[in-house]
């Protein structure tokens, strides 16, 4: 690891101040991506600003129509306390138990790894991202590979999920890393169907043809014939683009079957 200054911010304001005044600052949430990256000297930062001491970023709360997850809520907390079953299931399948005790939803979506699980939840459940300055709709948040709408010093303070009438997440895990080769979140909320796909492309995306078909009839058969364009899909030693496209169909159908 290159050397850096460590700061433990006591408040969101202090964290932002530290980040703004640093030449090269990095927020530290759970550290599940940042710390391995620093360890391998793949990143060189001046200041690491730990958000772990900010109480207001923690916790999972449910009101009548939505569930709000603090930016620093760890995966195991969501796996235990989320009132949306699909979200609980998704969180319980991220990484491994030790990772789930440290990794956070804010850190995950701010990093926007193309194979991460949470982006599928945020997009597939049409969540609203609260930051220390604004709210961002899910459709506007994920802008590309490892890229989001977050500004330079912006912090994800919470993610608010509207309660769906039904939702399911099915993932085909990478056998080595246990990230998603393909993960599909299917949901219906107030009659609106969403199908969000992670792992397959360079960034989480909505499968609009599937959404339309499911809006017409919410059944696995409705989407069985839909072919997925794999031209921009990831291809690696674990799965070709073509196989990923196939898996999108299989995972989506399995998700639909689970809730129809």
């Amino acid at each position, binding site marked *: *690891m290159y050397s850096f200054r460590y700061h433990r911010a006591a408040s969101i304001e202090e964290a932002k101040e530290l980040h703004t005044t640093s030449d090269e600052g990095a927020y530290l949430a759970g550290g599940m991506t940042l710390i391995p990256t620093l360890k391998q000297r793949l990143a060189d930062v001046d200041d690491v600003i730990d958000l772990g001491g900010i109480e207001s970023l923690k916790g999972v709360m449910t009101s009548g129509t939505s569930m709000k997850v603090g930016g620093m809520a760890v995966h195991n907390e969501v796996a235990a306390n989320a009132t949306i079953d699909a979200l609980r299931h998704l969180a319980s399948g991220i990484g491994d138990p030790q990772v789930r005790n440290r990794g956070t939803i804010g850190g995950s979506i701010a990093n926007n790894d193309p194979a991460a699980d949470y982006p599928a939840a945020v997009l597939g459940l049409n969540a609203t991202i609260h930051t220390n300055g604004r709210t961002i709709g899910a459709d506007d948040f994920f802008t590309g590979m490892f890229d989001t709408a977050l500004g330079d010093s912006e912090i994800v303070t919470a993610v608010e999920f509207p309660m769906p009438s039904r939702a399911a997440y099915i993932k085909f895990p990478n*056998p*080595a890393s246990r990230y998603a080769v393909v993960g599909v979140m299917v949901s219906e909320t107030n009659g609106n169907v969403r199908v969000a796909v992670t792992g397959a492309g360079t960034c989480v995306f909505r499968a609009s043809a599937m959404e339309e078909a499911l809006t017409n009839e919410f059944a696995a058969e409705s989407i069985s014939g839909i072919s997925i364009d794999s031209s921009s899909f990831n291809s690696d*030693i674990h799965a070709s683009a073509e196989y990923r496209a196939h898996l999108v169909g*299989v995972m989506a159908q399995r998700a639909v079957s689970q809730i129809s």
Partner: protein
Amino acid sequence: MATETGIGASVRRTEDARFITGTGRYTDDINVPGQTYCVFVRSTHARAKIKSIDTSDALSTPGVVAAFVGADLAKDEIGDLPCGWLVKSKDGSDMIAPPHPPIATERVNYVGEPYALVIGETVQAAKDGAEAIVAEFEIQTPVMDVASATQSEQIHESVPSNRSYDWELGDKAATDAAFEDAAHVTSLDIVNNRLIPNAIEPRAALGSFDAASETYTLHTTSQNPHLERLVLAAFVNIAPEAKLHVVSPDVGGGFGSKIFVYAEETAVIWASAKVGRPVKWTADRVESFLSDAHGRDHVTHAELALSEEGDFLGLRVKTTANMGAYLSTFASSVPTYLYGTLMAGQYKTPAIYVEVQAVFTNTAPVDAYRGAGRPEATYVVERLVETAARELNTDVAELRRRNFINPEDFPYETPVALTYDTGNYAASLDKALEYANYSGFASRKARSEADGKRRGLGFSCYIEACGLAPSQVALSLGAGVGLFESAEVRVDVTGSVTVMTGAHSHGQGHETTFAQLVSDKLGIPFENVSVVHGDTRRSDYGLGTYGSRSIAVGGSAISKATDKIVTKAKKIAAHMLDSEEDQVSFDDGIFTIPDSNESLTFGEVAFSAYVPGNFPLDELEPGLSEKAFYDPANFTYPAGTHICEVEIDSETGTTSIVSFVAVDDFGNVINPMIVEGQVHGGLAQGIGQALLEHGIYDSDGQLVSGSYMDYTMPRADDLPDFVVDTTSTPCTHNPLGVKGCGEAGAIGATAAVMNAITDALGVKDLPMPATSETVWRAIQGG
């Protein structure tokens, strides 16, 4: 003596006490005053000429103590890393071993090859220094494809066609004739995938030099510290053996990868004298992936000739083995004497001919990995046999049974240079069939199909040659060292016993098994026996642990030394009882004179040995300590049947192992619990090869599967509960009747899994690992 701690008892391991409490002592746990830290600068190019290396910026980096390049070692006449087994080509010429300087001097030949080292006050400082090294390279096109390596650009000046050797074994004419007479020929083109060993403890070395005594001390993660010392002394020129002290403390798994003498410990021990301070290096996992010797990596065409009735008539095998960029310590022996010689398997195939060419590519060196050659051989034979049975519409078990070497055929001389001493292959097969509920398979398959899934069953009736090795045989075949084992049994004044062994335990449980053996033979409490290993100053020259040799060779040496103790103790007892040596009998720790009331305990005799008040010193020396060297008369031949049942998700191609049965014949067993554990671990590695693991380089020579993000390590939920049992035909030529069990799982499992998957899919072959996509594509019909 059948007791709770004697031979045959599942005694809980004594070494566990430190491991479960975190008080084991691995190389990286050891720190010495004044210690510095070494970081290696490794090539990011697969093939390049080194134009220049500038260390000046590194040297001026804060905290950097020293920086060295290959030329610095060469100046001190540090020798190349040798390959210790000379294989000869068909034409009688010697294999070609290209120069292998520990630190590259003129060229780098694989990604990860070290070309400089930086020593710092801290790891961070050394890393900073390493980043400040400026090297210029002339990049060349790497040779990456095994199959076409001989037609590719020449990697080493001394190696035309990138071929180290072109070896053969068996009778070509007889085999060709057998094929001419055959009613049926089954042929397969097989790739045995490259594996990366991945002991969970990364390699490490801590070298120090004592100027006053001119003595070097090396703590390192070695499976065979004496061999490490021998190579560093005799070939690398560090110092005479007497001035080199090598210690392998607790070692966190080896699986072959820690047999070899590597660049890193060589450079570290040399550098400790250069900088006058201890130097420590611990690999990170990326370095382990890049620089541990890899395993397997064969491309093979194989054919089996059968008669109308299903008798095996001949076997023809042609293999190209990837050696990587250099010949590692034992690399040359793996695809030859540990591979070609196993092609008879469990069968009476009368004519066998094997050709192996070993080629260089711009990849990490390939050497022995758990099973070493024998898994590859088993894969060839057992994939062929299963395929032949399917082609002939014969029951796969019955075709095997028909061709088995039967109990009455032993000793059995194979057409490929081995003489099997004993075995009962049908016994293992029968037992395994029962466990696997073979007769119920059809209904299980029907149930899976009703669920839209595929189900398959696969067999592997493997044999291995273990207990490496009879020195006479090994030396005549080109080995550079004998392969005996040493032991010393020291009886203490109070009758407790310390056993020194040249074998090394890095998970095998020697401290328990060897203590069981000695306590059983001497009739003393198990707790009173301590086993010492892994230190060249504490035990006699030994050869270490690999090739399932520790109990068969090391244990036999201990047995022999213990027999000598009994002989000497009888002499002492005779003197004490005023009798004759041949009148004394010894049983269960008591010396008696038959037909008398007189007896002595082992402790009384031991005490007397060290308090020799009235010994007739010209006839009877004081003391009770004996050494033995045991050189086996033959290899041992563990064998067995593995049966794997898989279920495949037709939509995703994902394979689940629903049942795995292993019935192995290890001869006599000292500690069944430990033996079962060895089988479990081997199975996991064999299954890992079939389903998950793959060392992949891209066409530029970059290791794509170079971290746990991409190299699929078997996890708990990738594997089933195993059904493991044994049969026994004791080895006929060692005193314990044991055969060795360390590699069996890895040798047998892979073929069983792939036979099951190809059965489920109805395809002839499938490349390994059978990843979900590979299987899915097969289901799609290509």
